[in-house]
């Protein structure tokens, strides 16, 4: 009797729990659907662009098919060459040869001309073999390189952009090799992005730790108004803050003016449109993201612990190093990870206060998308940036906890 009542109650509880869960899921559904459509799908589409290789298959479908199954080095057998040559001619007639030319030019600069001029001048039927006809138009057709390039362009997807994003390429045997040193630029950009982000994180920590420490040691009615000073830059437009730094740091700017008048400088120094400007402005913009997590962790550290250490004979420094510092580490980890992650993706600030040598990876993503329409390259660089960010995001979730993520 009693057991059946208990079982009944348990069932009722479980039903209520299920109903509550279901209701919760229904409420979370609209945002989930919205983000899947307008956030996740666009990013997946962007990732697909990084390996997109549709040009040859679209303009010359039969060639793409036979090139895919062809193995070996050097010009392929005559039947394959015949299909490629006649389809190239057809593509020219249909005005699609430019698509192929553009794709091949990504393999090697100069192949655009090779493809376009060949396509324009190809006869309807071969003089001798098709290969001889092609070589007569341009001797490059007798070399293995262009055929290996065509075969790579014929694959269903390509790694050319992703490899290029880390200064790698494939040779005529399809082996992965380094690009020639004069063309290797992307690793530099990647290293520079991480370096600038690391420095900015370090500066934020150096400026932010003592500030958070002071705020946490004050009574709340003092700490709150001061915290507002930290939050003000945070609510101010990024563009306003960046403009302010240009005004302050430029050659005829306020800082140079002041230093000249104070006799500390003989002539104005370049403080902006270079690395200094980028570091100063980014540190300013990101400092609140360091102070807030530090502050919220430090607020929770009981003063009695350090007092105990002091009363047991610790010097102030060792009480800080052995008790307070370890306890504040979660805040340090949260602040540093957050600042570093946000810094990695910065575009506007370096674009406005940096020079050509201070642009970070985001700048090149924008450059390839908007200026040169090299979408594959843009998507590949964005993929690298996304991978780095997600890795750090995962680390943040593991170390700090995702529920503590807030920007304000």
């Amino acid at each position, binding site marked *: 009797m009693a057991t059946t009542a208990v079982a009944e109650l348990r069932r009722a509880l479980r039903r209520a729990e299920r109903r509550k869960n279901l209701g919760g899921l229904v*409420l979370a559904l609209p945002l989930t659907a*919205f983000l899947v459509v307008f956030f996740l799908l666009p990013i997946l589409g962007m990732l697909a662009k990084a390996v997109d290789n549709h040009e040859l298959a679209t303009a010359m479908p039969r060639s793409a098919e036979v090139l895919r199954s062809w193995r070996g080095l050097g010009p392929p057998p005559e039947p394959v060459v015949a299909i490629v040559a006649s389809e190239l001619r057809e593509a020219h007639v249909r005005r699609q040869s430019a698509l192929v030319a553009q794709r091949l030019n990504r393999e090697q600069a100069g192949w655009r001309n090779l493809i376009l001029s060949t396509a324009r001048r190809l006869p309807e039927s071969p003089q001798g073999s098709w290969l001889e006809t092609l070589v007569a138009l341009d001797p490059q057709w007798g070399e293995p390189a262009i055929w290996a390039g065509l075969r790579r362009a014929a694959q269903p997807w390509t790694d050319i952009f992703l490899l290029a994003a880390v200064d790698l390429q494939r040779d005529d045997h399809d082996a992965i090799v380094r690009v020639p040193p004069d063309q290797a630029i992307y690793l530099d950009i990647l290293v520079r992005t991480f370096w600038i982000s690391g420095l900015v994180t370090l500066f934020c920590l150096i400026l932010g730790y003592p500030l958070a420490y002071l705020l946490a040691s004050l009574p709340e009615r003092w700490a709150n108004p001061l915290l507002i000073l930290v939050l003000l830059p945070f609510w101010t437009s990024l563009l306003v803050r960046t*403009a302010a730094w240009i005004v302050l740091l430029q050659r005829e700017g306020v800082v140079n003016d002041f230093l000249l008048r104070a006799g500390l400088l003989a002539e104005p120094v370049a403080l902006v449109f270079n690395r200094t400007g980028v570091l100063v402005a980014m540190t300013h913009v990101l400092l609140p993201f360091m102070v807030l997590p530090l502050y919220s962790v430090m607020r929770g550290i009981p003063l009695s612990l350090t007092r105990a250490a002091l009363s047991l004979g610790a010097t102030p420094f060792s009480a800080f190093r052995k008790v307070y510092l370890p306890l504040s580490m979660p805040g340090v980890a949260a602040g540093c990870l957050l600042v570093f992650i946000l810094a990695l993706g910065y575009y506007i600030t370096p674009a406005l206060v940096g020079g050509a040598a201070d642009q970070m990876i985001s700048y090149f993503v924008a450059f390839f998308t908007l200026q040169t329409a090299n979408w594959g390259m843009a998507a590949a660089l964005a993929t690298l940036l996304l991978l780095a*960010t997600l890795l750090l995001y995962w680390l943040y979730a593991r170390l700090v906890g995702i529920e503590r993520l807030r920007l304000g």
Partner: protein
Amino acid sequence: MLGSGILGRTSLWLYCLLVFAFLVLPIFVIVPLSFSAGAFLHFPLPGLSLRWYERLVEHEIWRVTLKNSLIVGAIATVLATGLGTLAAMGLARARFPGKGLLMALMLAPMIVPVIIVAIGAYFFYRPLGLTGSLWGLAIAHAVLGAPFVLVTVSATLGALDPSLVRAAQGLGASPWVAFRKVTLPIIAPGVVSGALFAFVASFDEVVVALFLTGPAQRTLPRQMFDGIREEISPEILAAATVLVALAVALLVVAELLRRRSARLRGLAP
């Protein structure tokens, strides 16, 4: 403990005053310059005038871009606030496998670099006819703003005593009435400050705007960006000063809301 002696305390304060100056002064340096009678960004000012503010009013481009920004901001805020609040309430009630992953997805727009959101939208929105329209930009901004709402509303919901809602229902209130009369007033400060965040995130956003807007949809930040890139004039600084004033106003509202929320939850007198 460090900074406990007089000397330590004084040097800590001095250091922190410098950091505060670094944080706040740059923002206020532009204010006097925007009232300059001259065209150069120098101190001392040749005289005070409102001529640059008159330019702001006269030049149609500022009016047009402000209007575009307000429209985009309003749509984005409504979308982000509605979706974010619902999701926060849902996640507070439900426990299910993969909840952590769903949270990670919902917060990801705060973390994923804006440039990635921007080129994703650039490729994806075109076939949907969402480029070159204020709607496309507003939707992208809602994506960026929703996590802020989710976070602020979740924080207030976390402090909500569930027995209050149960008491209301026990006294005969329907779930809707209990929500409207009990839950909503308590989480309202969180909803409003989330909405403020979402609005500011949109109103200040320039990267996605660079990718998704044509000349007709130019927003205020986009206009500022081009102005700063060409040459900073006192006119740009006048616009910037207006934005700083707006930031101060929003900050005050957000702070008042935070206090109200703390009071309602019984955390402060």
